[in-house]
């Protein structure tokens, strides 16, 4: 299973994968147990001469405990899974920090228009600049992005960050992440947004803070 996930480069990505594996092992165990029971019963209780079926209605508490006790264990495990997931969800989605870097993305068919704050680190000033479908962020910094859409619903998906958020016209939705490894990755749209949906790809470039600053200054000087 490990080999199938894209490489994780965010601080919270391992927590998402952790909840995945927690569920994987819990339900995997129950799944195998249940399948084993089915296959065992099918073989063990196939029709044999002189061996009539038992008359078991399952209408007493004693008999019902065969299924209700396993179901109660399922319930307890479910609540445990909920608790583990709730903590991770809150870390990623509920508590969005102000961010060391704040960007704005306007999604439109079929591009990500990314607004950078320029040299003054402030959005909404004259030195802001827009780059299409090329997301630059510094490594080891809290990055906050305000997501907006100009037309239809898109979905902002960074597979390596384990982050996804629908981008809804009429709303400004904040997401955050902190990445730990420089490199070039991909930004995807994961909500059907029209005939060019599959082309709505962006490059996701994680740079050292120095490189990032240099890149921002170079562009805002042009602006």
């Amino acid at each position, binding site marked *: 299973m490990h080999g199938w996930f894209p490489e994780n480069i965010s601080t919270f990505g391992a927590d998402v*994968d952790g909840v995945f594996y927690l569920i994987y092992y819990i339900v995997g165990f129950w799944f195998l147990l249940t399948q084993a029971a089915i296959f065992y019963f099918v073989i063990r209780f196939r029709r044999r001469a002189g061996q009539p079926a038992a008359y078991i209605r399952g209408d007493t508490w004693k008999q019902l405990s065969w299924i209700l006790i396993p179901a109660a264990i399922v319930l307890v495990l479910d609540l445990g899974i909920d608790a583990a997931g709730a903590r991770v969800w809150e870390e990623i989605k509920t508590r969005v920090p102000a961010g060391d870097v704040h960007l704005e993305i306007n999604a439109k068919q079929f591009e990500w228009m990314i607004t950078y704050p320029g040299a003054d680190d402030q959005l909404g000033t004259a030195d802001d600049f827009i780059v299409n479908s090329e997301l630059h962020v510094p490594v080891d910094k809290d990055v906050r992005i305000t997501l907006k859409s100009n037309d239809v619903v898109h979905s902002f998906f960074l597979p390596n960050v384990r982050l996804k958020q629908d981008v809804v016209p009429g709303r400004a939705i904040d997401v955050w992440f902190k990445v730990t490894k420089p490199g070039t990755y991909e930004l995807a749209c994961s909500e059907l947004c029209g005939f060019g949906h599959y*082309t709505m790809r962006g490059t996701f470039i994680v740079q050292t803070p120095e490189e990032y600053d240099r890149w921002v200054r170079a562009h805002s000087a042009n602006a």
Partner: protein
Amino acid sequence: MSQVAAVEQHGHGELSFWRRYIFSVDHKVIGKQYLTLGLLMALVGGASAYVIRWQLAWPETPIPLTSWVPEPSMYEGQLDPNFYNQLVTMHGTIMVFFVAMPILLGGLGNFLLPIMVGADDMAFPRLNMMSFWTICTAAVVLISSFFVPGGAASAGWTGYPPLSDNPTYTGVYWGINLWLIALALEFSSFLMGGVNFLTTAINMRAPGLSFFRLPLMVWMQLTAAVLFMLSVGPLIGGAVMLLLDRTIGTTFFLPGGGGDPLLWQHLFWFFGHPEVYVVLLPGVGAVLEVLPVFARKPIFGYRTIIYSTIISGVLSFVVWAHHMFIAGIDPRLATPFSITTILISVPFAVMVFAMIVTLWGGSLTFPTPMLFALGFLVTFLVGGVTGIFNGSAAVDIYIHGTYFVVAHFHYTLFPTVFFGGFAGIYFWYPKMFGRMMNETLGKVHFWLTAISFNLVFIPMFLLGIGGHMRRIYNPMQYEFLRPLAPVNQFITVAAVILLLSQLPFIVNFFASMWWGKEAAANPWRANTLEWTAPSPPPHGNFETAPTVYRGPYEYSAPGAENDWLPQDRPIPAAAAAVRG
């Protein structure tokens, strides 16, 4: 009117061809009509899956057997991205609304519900006929949308606005209007059907047939009808609003005019999640009828299953936002909906455990219906446990909108509609057509389907874990998806085998009508009332109206003469012997 009067004068059985097979009011004929419609639409849905799969495995290469599709849908055998989106949309719409529902509710429900409760027909036979012809109209409208300028609906089967709202975003004008009209007609059809199901099961039960003696299939159809009728209203409202947005310029879902796209998502999924259970319950019902007959045992925990069904039905109304965790709703809503979602696994665990325990101590035989019922259990479990991943909001952040979700819901719906549905069709075919289906072809069909189905959808989980998005025309655009290309190719080969695996069924289904072995009234030695009627039952079903003395699953009862004890047999043989 004169025709109707003539029919009434002549009584049952002397109707013209048209009144007998086309505009019939007989619930059994209508059930078969629904079944035929569902199976025909499944061919369209399957064909669209084939084109989608080919494109994903070998993007932008000519697709075999599609050279007849004209431009602009295909260019020299290559798929246009717009047409790809149309096929994705239509595949979902067709399979859920025009295959699953017609087969399981319209087909099995119509055929079985009246006869299982010992009635001579539905409470409102003409309404029943009208509901069939309404969905038939809906199907014609839906299919015709492929042929209008701009093509069919292309905004996904969920039709999220603004994409589905403003025609400039898709280039599809009439296609989406017709799609909405087809959905509205389909909903009205099943609303009429629901009224009939409820009235018939409540008011027309045979003497002695109390609610807790009803076969579980009837309980499942009833619960499904109630869930559908309670949940569909908001979506009908939504569909009308979307149609108004598209035609007269209202802005219910357009933020530019003060509307909100998320409103649609709430309306859609408030219906959409109960809808999953509307489809699921009748499929489970078929399996619940088949298991005891071929285990020769009572179903384990009859009442517990009924209570679990009702609990899951109620819970299904408070889980819808799990489809919207990352849609932009308040993040504080995620955890409550995560809890309700994962809780719904408990009543289903109870039902599945009850089915498995039913096998314990049985005397199992494995004709085709039983194979499909067991196949349902084995495969549905995969769908059930993978739902836990999606239901966890934290995991959903990553796997939402990926092939993990696609694999999950195919593992719930395919077992329900096809394993459950085929179990039902092979089981009740002798009652429907008076002839047995061929066992060898049935077993070939089962094994081919079971193996290739798993080969298609297990790898899809891996695609999803790899981050592969749904509804992507060409995954090769993304570098991180390129290494997954062999998986896509494997899936497509398996999918073609899965489609071809249905040929033995098609041959068997039609050939057995003429050349099948003639069926006795009760070929499986089963207890429920439909088996006391002749095979096939005449218009009016029973020669004498049945009276019911016991529950439906008295198999291998101690002291009984045989290992089955029909619901309408007055005095158990053993009791008579004691008395004598």
